[in-house]
């Protein structure tokens, strides 16, 4: 246990799992949302611990910030108490045990934590880190065709350059979600309301 990354990783994940269980256990929705905010923040620290800096600050901003605000806003319209009921659900338990068992069985041959010989590390990752992908070899006398001066952050380079279309259409996803929320939540126009009332009278 000399590796501090691994030690902090285990400690953080144990705390995160306990927080997640507490968030799912409580019948108080406001408390559950707060616990999920704490869980997101723990994950943000965990991502920083695993050297995923960009994911870390996105998780802190989106998971612990924006998602919590969205949930709290929704709770003001839906109420904060969940109906009491049994916590034990045999069908759910069976499904979870079978699915979880299969998943753990499937992860048995995954590379160990931090394995430098893992396929994900040795296959294409060095190309992306060297920022060689997309470079065209124009021969000995042709000009070297690349993206010019690369940004030092490889995550940004991959996101904005190699996966540029993907990032562009990600904004389309957010726009679509925004349009959906507006269409669902906007009050009916007076003419539409009259039409609905007319339909109900006819029926």
């Amino acid at each position, binding site marked *: 246990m000399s590796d501090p990354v691994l030690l902090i990783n285990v400690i953080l994940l144990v705390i*995160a799992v306990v927080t997640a269980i507490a968030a*799912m256990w409580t019948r108080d929705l406001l408390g559950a949302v707060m616990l999920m905010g704490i869980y997101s923040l723990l994950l943000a620290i965990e991502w920083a611990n*695993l050297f995923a800096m960009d994911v870390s600050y996105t998780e802190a901003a989106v998971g612990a910030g924006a998602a919590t605000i969205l949930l709290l806003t929704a709770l003001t319209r839906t109420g904060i108490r969940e109906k009491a009921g049994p916590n034990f659900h045999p069908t759910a338990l069976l499904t979870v045990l079978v699915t979880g068992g299969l998943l753990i069985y499937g992860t048995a041959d995954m590379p160990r934590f931090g394995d430098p010989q893992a396929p994900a590390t040795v296959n294409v990752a060095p190309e992306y880190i060297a920022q060689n992908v997309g470079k065209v070899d124009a021969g000995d006398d042709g000009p070297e065709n690349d993206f010019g001066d690369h940004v030092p952050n490889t995550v940004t380079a991959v996101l904005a350059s190699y996966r540029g279309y993907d990032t562009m259409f990600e904004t389309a996803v957010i726009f679509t979600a925004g349009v959906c929320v507006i269409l669902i939540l906007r009050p009916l126009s007076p003419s539409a309301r009259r039409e609905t009332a007319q339909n109900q009278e006819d029926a």
Partner: protein
Amino acid sequence: MSLFATFNSIAFVVIMMIGLYTLIARQNLVKKTLGLGLFQTGIFLMYITLGVRDGGSAPILQEGADLAYSNPLPHVLILTAIVVSLSTMAVALALIIGVREEYGTIEADEIATIDRAEAEEGHEA
């Protein structure tokens, strides 16, 4: 040591299964949405773990330094996934508010009861 080396592949399954259990066992629609969010974070954990490398640092290149960088590709994929998960959650919450205005409740079993009662009324009329 071997338990710690494979700890994350157990942990991500545990997190996903807590979310899945909530999705099935709980009737409250907001709680179901939270369970779905938990399920997604389990997948994030699996991807980020795949990018870790012994002695690796953050994948930000430093001039003249001979460092082992962790794999940036899982990070990029998860950045996209986090934003998409926020979008789906926003639409789900908007739908839940609509359901609440229509039915007066956000418990799935009560909504089913109301729907069944209305269907029977329709048959009698």
